[in-house]
């Protein structure tokens, strides 16, 4: 039973990070039907920003949790700015181009950002300060749930709840939903679509930054390439849950995290990815739009 709980929680914490990144993919897809391949790189840039901030504040001798909180906030702002800029440079000029064009532009952006960080920082792995202390009251649960796992899970839940509130009840959230339903119609009734798209990129990017800083301080190291696999897995999670659907991305992330964790625990980590992608294939066979995606009639 304890072993089950261990795997359950490690899957949960991994899954919540996948979900945080997957939200960015799914929100952008929901609004402009673009798969933003540069999103993984935004996550990586978030982690690097966190490292720089953490390095500065550690030198000033701040307490670890305060540093973590500030690092997360600064990384969110910085990544948000990157997301905004990427959209303006790489996607906005191509908004009315054939759908393949922005996709290729996205891949280009991803390669550019990776190499830019590699050249500006270093190709080596960098140690990331472990900002999550082992809290005393967690001692008895430590055998199956570490403090950093708990913090990742709690932060993800809070962030996702806030996002849900934002989408459901605020003016901008409503405008986002309207744009996702029908961009032209939203424009006709006076929604500033450009602004909505920018906001989507900023929010998606800052969520990825939260995931980036949390995982980096959990794993204790980063390099310019971490965004690739994380992005790939998160994209899988978004498709699994139904791309375009926000609750779908959250569910997809968790399902993927658990699948990987249990496959490793009960079968073999050799087959971790096999099981993850097998699940994806199965779900897409029986529910082509993903777990929570809406089945839409296609115009032919």
């Amino acid at each position, binding site marked *: 039973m304890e072993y089950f709980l261990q795997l359950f929680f490690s899957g949960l*914490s991994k899954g919540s990070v996948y979900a945080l990144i997957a939200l960015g993919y799914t929100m952008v897809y929901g609004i402009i039907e673009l798969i933003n391949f540069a999103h993984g790189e935004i996550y990586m840039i978030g982690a690097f920003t966190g490292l720089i901030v953490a390095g500065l504040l550690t030198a000033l001798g701040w307490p670890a949790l305060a540093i973590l909180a500030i690092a997360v906030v600064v990384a969110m702002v910085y990544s948000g700015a990157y997301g905004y800029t990427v959209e303006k440079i790489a996607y906005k000029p191509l908004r009315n181009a054939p759908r393949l064009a922005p996709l290729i532009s996205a891949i280009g952006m991803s390669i550019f950002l990776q190499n830019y960080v590699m050249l500006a920082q270093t190709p080596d792995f960098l140690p990331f300060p472990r900002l999550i202390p082992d809290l005393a009251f967690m001692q008895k649960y430590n055998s199956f749930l570490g403090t950093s796992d708990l913090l990742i899970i709690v932060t993800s839940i809070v962030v996702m709840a806030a996002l849900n509130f934002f989408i459901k009840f605020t003016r901008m959230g409503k405008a986002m939903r309207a744009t996702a339903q029908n961009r032209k119609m939203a424009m006709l009734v006076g929604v500033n679509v450009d602004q909505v798209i920018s906001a989507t990129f900023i929010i998606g990017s800052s969520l990825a930054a939260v995931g980036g800083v949390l995982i980096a301080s959990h794993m204790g190291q980063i390099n*310019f390439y971490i965004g690739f696999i994380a992005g790939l897995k998160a994209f899988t999670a978004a498709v699994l849950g139904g791309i375009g659907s926000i609750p779908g991305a959250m569910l997809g992330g968790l399902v993927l995290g658990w699948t990987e964790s249990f496959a*490793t625990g009960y079968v073999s980590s050799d087959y971790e990815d096999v099981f993850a992608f097998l699940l994806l294939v199965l779900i897409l066979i029986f529910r082509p739009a993903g777990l929570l995606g809406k089945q839409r009639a296609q115009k032919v």
Partner: protein
Amino acid sequence: MKARWILSVAGVAMAGLLMVGCGKKDEQKTDAANATASSDKIVIGVAGAQSGDLASYGLPTLNAAKLVAKEVNAKGGINGKKVEILPMDDQCKPELATNAATKLVSEKVNLVIGHICSGATKAALPIYKDAKVIVISPSATSTELTQSGDYPNFFRTISYDLVQGKAGAEFAENTLHVKKVAIIHDKGDYGKGIAESAKTALEEGKQAKVVLFEGITPGGVDYSAVVQKIKNSGADCVIFGGYHPEASKIIIQMHQKGLKIPFVSDDGVKVDTFIKTAGADAEGVYATGPQILADNAIYKKAIEDHKKDFGSDPGAFFPQAYAASQALMNAVAKAGSTDYDKVAAALRSEYVETPVGKIKFDSKGDAEGVSFSVYQVKNGKYELVK
């Protein structure tokens, strides 16, 4: 208005001229390169990870080749010909390694030092074999590269995984006296090779049991599930086959989960980058690495030269790369030409004094007399375990 018009025309014309100028220079350069391959220079390609996250494995080899070439050139070159080093980056990726090999072959280079990683070397070797290029690697330890007998053009100055995995396993059972071993690898040619030979050695030794044998995906977001599994298996030692990024992630997560058992790894982990990234968690980690003859005079001199020229201590595989460069240039000198058959024969018959001892190569291409030792991280540095 008119003045501006004239100015811009002049500007365009000048830019055009510049471009023409560049074009001419490039042509001259390629002419020069063609000439070098045939007449007054001996070009040696140095291929391996020179950028990317595994650059710390490959750059020391480039430095070693440059140092040896400098020394040889200072003495008048080989048979009156100057040695020139041509670096080629593969980032330790098989797909880039084949590109690098094709490029070297098309530049008519027929002597190569490299590649660095086993997977990349394996991918590049068929291209070199077809083009009759001699390849000496300082660090590609995959057993089959030499032992399969498929590549008569391949030599190396390091021992191979079968020996290395065994060294780690024997250290674990005979020195650490562990009883249950979890073996983890990164599913790559190199890591899995080490892991499998360690497993075979443990099964033959019969003193310790292999309780877990698993591969992980390199670059994963989190390895806590596999760490839980190690913990659950009751292992009292972990043997890891693979490179340093995964090793440091696993050791960090093991310590996070309160699992403090010996961690024995390979020469992919015996690099300073590992200690830098894992920080305090690296302390106490064991890694096998090529045996170093600390009191070898050539070794000492090579390190001094490196400090003088590059201002730092040399990195991973530097002595092996230095030995490879010396062996190759010596063989060319003895053969009297860069002819494939003559150089290969000279490598197999002529002894050379190198930082890894006095070596020549056996019929399969492995250097005779090189082996592995076990090192441990103590106070942020790898030290030989006696």
